[in-house]
């Protein structure tokens, strides 16, 4: 009833090929963007903008990057955090060594450097598959973390290896408050998410999915495996690289190589598993689950029990509840939370007359 394509006729190629062919989807996305850009800045305080929503958006972008590689192209990777680190350190070094470089160009260059590194570490994917590839990408994780710590040049010979991100200024406008940072991150993430949505519908995206579903068959129908896989690594690392640069510049302010350790890679992988592989929306839902849920549990546990429970018990309980929730959702919906949304859409189609 509410959500029905029935009766919506496509009369031009343009409308048939639109990113969101159904008006309900289109309006839904518009509404979400409107809320994110206008309503949230108006009602949220600095705490929400600065340390809840900004890191959520940045990690959602990283999850999106990994989802392109793993969800769409089927190449398992455990090096996402390392590519984030490359992005963060590249952005810092471009700002440092090319003073006055425009910030957005800086982020793009950082992403490109990460993409280049991603291609190099993607080469093994041409020969090895599945879990074995995951182990090979682990090499990226360790090698990059090691080299960023080992070679002082990357951190401008800082004695502790910690880099401090420069100020974010675009055309003389200083993005210094949590609100401004949030809006900048939101803009970048929205644009990149839209691009990803478009990309996965394009020839490239279809080639990725063909390789994911059966690479031999894909090769037979004329898809060049090497180009397709390396492209997926490049695009994925680009997204992770930009996310890393944002993590350093718009969120933490200071990072070192250990900020992007293996744990972070796992976290990003869990985001797409819980959120939904091969789904743009899933990356956001997964990031929301993994980033926000522990904080919600923490806040609500404090609100509910306060000082009634020993603090160490409370801390451990949070982890238990969080782990329990992951298992719960994976049992209820093994295909990820994004699948729940899809089911909801199916149901809305029939509502109120299910048959």
């Amino acid at each position, binding site marked *: 009833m509410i959500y029905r394509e029935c009766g919506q006729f496509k009369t031009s190629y343009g409308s048939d090929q639109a990113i969101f062919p159904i008006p309900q989807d289109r309006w839904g996305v518009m509404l979400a963007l409107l809320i994110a850009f206008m309503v949230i800045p108006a009602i949220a*305080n*600095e*705490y*929400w903008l*600065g*340390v*809840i929503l900004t*890191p959520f958006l940045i990690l959602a972008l990283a999850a999106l990057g990994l989802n392109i590689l793993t969800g769409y192209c089927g190449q398992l990777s455990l090096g996402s955090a390392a590519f984030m680190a490359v992005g963060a350190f590249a952005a810092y070094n471009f700002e440092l060594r090319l003073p006055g470089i425009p910030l957005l160009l800086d982020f793009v260059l950082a992403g490109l450097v990460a993409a280049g590194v991603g291609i190099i570490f993607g080469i093994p994917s041409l020969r090895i598959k599945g879990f074995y590839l995951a182990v090979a990408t682990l090499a990226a994780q*360790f090698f990059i*973390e*090691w080299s960023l*710590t*080992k070679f002082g040049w990357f951190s401008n010979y800082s*004695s*502790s*290896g*910690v880099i*401090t991100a420069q100020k974010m200024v675009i055309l003389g406008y200083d993005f210094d408050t949590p609100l401004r940072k949030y809006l900048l991150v939101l803009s970048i993430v929205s644009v990149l998410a839209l691009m990803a949505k478009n990309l996965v519908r394009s020839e490239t995206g279809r080639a990725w999915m063909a390789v994911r579903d059966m690479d031999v068959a894909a090769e037979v129908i004329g898809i060049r495996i090497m180009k397709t896989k390396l492209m997926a690594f490049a695009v994925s690392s680009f997204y992770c690289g930009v996310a890393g640069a944002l993590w350093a510049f718009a*969120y*933490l*302010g*200071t990072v*070192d190589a*250990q*900020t992007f*350790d293996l744990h972070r890679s796992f976290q990003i992988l869990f985001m797409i598993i819980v959120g939904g592989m091969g789904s743009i929306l899933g990356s956001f839902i997964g990031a929301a689950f993994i980033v926000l849920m*522990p*904080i*919600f*549990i*923490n*806040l*609500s546990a*404090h*609100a*509910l029990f306060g000082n009634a429970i*020993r*603090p*160490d018990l*409370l*801390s*451990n309980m*949070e*982890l238990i509840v969080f782990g329990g*929730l992951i298992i*719960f959702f994976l049992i*209820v919906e093994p295909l990820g939370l994004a699948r729940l949304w899809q089911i909801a859409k199916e149901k809305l189609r029939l509502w109120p007359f299910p048959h």
Partner: protein
Amino acid sequence: MTLKKVLVSCLGAAVLGGIVAGGGAVVAQSNEQFIPMLSYRVGPYAAGGTGIFGGFIDYINLLNERDGGINGVKITYEECETEYKPDRALECYERLKNSGPTGASMFNFVATPPVYATMDRTLEDKIPVVAIGYGPAYTADGRVFPYIFPLVTTYWSQNTAKIKFIALQEQCLAQYPDLEGKPDRAAQCFEHAKKGELQGDGLDKLKGKKIVNLYHDSGYGKETKPILDAQAEKYGFQVVYIPVPHPGNEQQSQWLQIRREKPDWVILRGWGVMNPTAITQAARIKFPADRIVGVWWSGAEEDVVPAGDAAIGFIAAALNPAGDQFPAIKQIEELLYSKGKGNMQDPSRVGSVYYNRGIIHGVLNTEAIRKAQEKFGNKPLTGEQVRWGLENLEITEARLKELGLEGVMSPIKISCADHEGGAPVRFHQWNGKQWVLVSDWIATDQSLVRPLVEKEAANYAKEKNLPIRDCSKES
């Protein structure tokens, strides 16, 4: 289906509760001074977190219970679990910075990465960050970092004391060669030093010696490189840097390298699981434990007990001695633990190294508030006012005695230019059952540290375009 519904609605309620708790500020009570507790009670560093925050909270509860707070102002606190992760710590920082009637008094992260992450924020929020015995050493220059207080002793200062301690051991061995290889060498040397029998400080004996710096490969671990290089040049010893990747439970190749290098001493800059692993590996290559000198984040019971007998003889720097013989800690046991109000789940850990470090956290935090009250009145103070208290903090021997904590730390004095205090360092040795002090307070070498601090701080100020305060104009 019904079970699912119940679960979903429970989840919804929890999320809603979280939103309400996060959004709405806690209603302020008057006459209370709020200290946020960014503790970590789970994760790989929980042993340190539970001990330090346990001691910290117990000390605050002692003041509340015994004296009704500080000059009638009750101290309140709220815990926030950081899991020792910088992003969680930042979330806690933002969550708690406006709690209490006047906002947070100061933040104690007990972790180095969040100190870096909040260095710029403190200037805007006007809330001091107190880093007792950790954090970037160059923040000791209060002219550039008005809100950061790496109190007591920074890693650089500590490292100078460590080299002096090693020199003292060399001096002792030069005079009493038969002590070599004896299990009680350090204790014997301490006896000789107490009697004044050592002729000189031994710094000339360091020439040609080889010292391995085995460090946690992180910002924290790398921190002492500049000062070690400066000292190596000054005293003519050789330093070999060997990194251990996080978290540090794999050290076989590092210790093989140490065996090849045949160093005279090993400095262990470890944290958490890296420490017992290093000690066990040292025993495997038969490197004597009493020639390993650890940083004070390697010198707690939790670092040596897992290594078993291999740890006997291991020496580490002590920010504070262990033991519950101090009158204030006795009072904590009486007033809190006997009534079940103590914070430590395992009361036998009261008086352990980490616990006593928590007590020091409590003392320095509350004494700074007390000092600030002298100027601003006995009422809840803002972070800005507490900052003044920290900057003018002086803890004398007499004051420590009054507090019932004589000997738990050395007296310090903070000033506008010097946010550290440069307090001396003691060293203690693990005898298999407890930590025994094997040195007197050894002064740090500020003539070496301070120029480096000022240079790095000036670099930072230049990079960030920060003003440098003129301390003669501060009151």
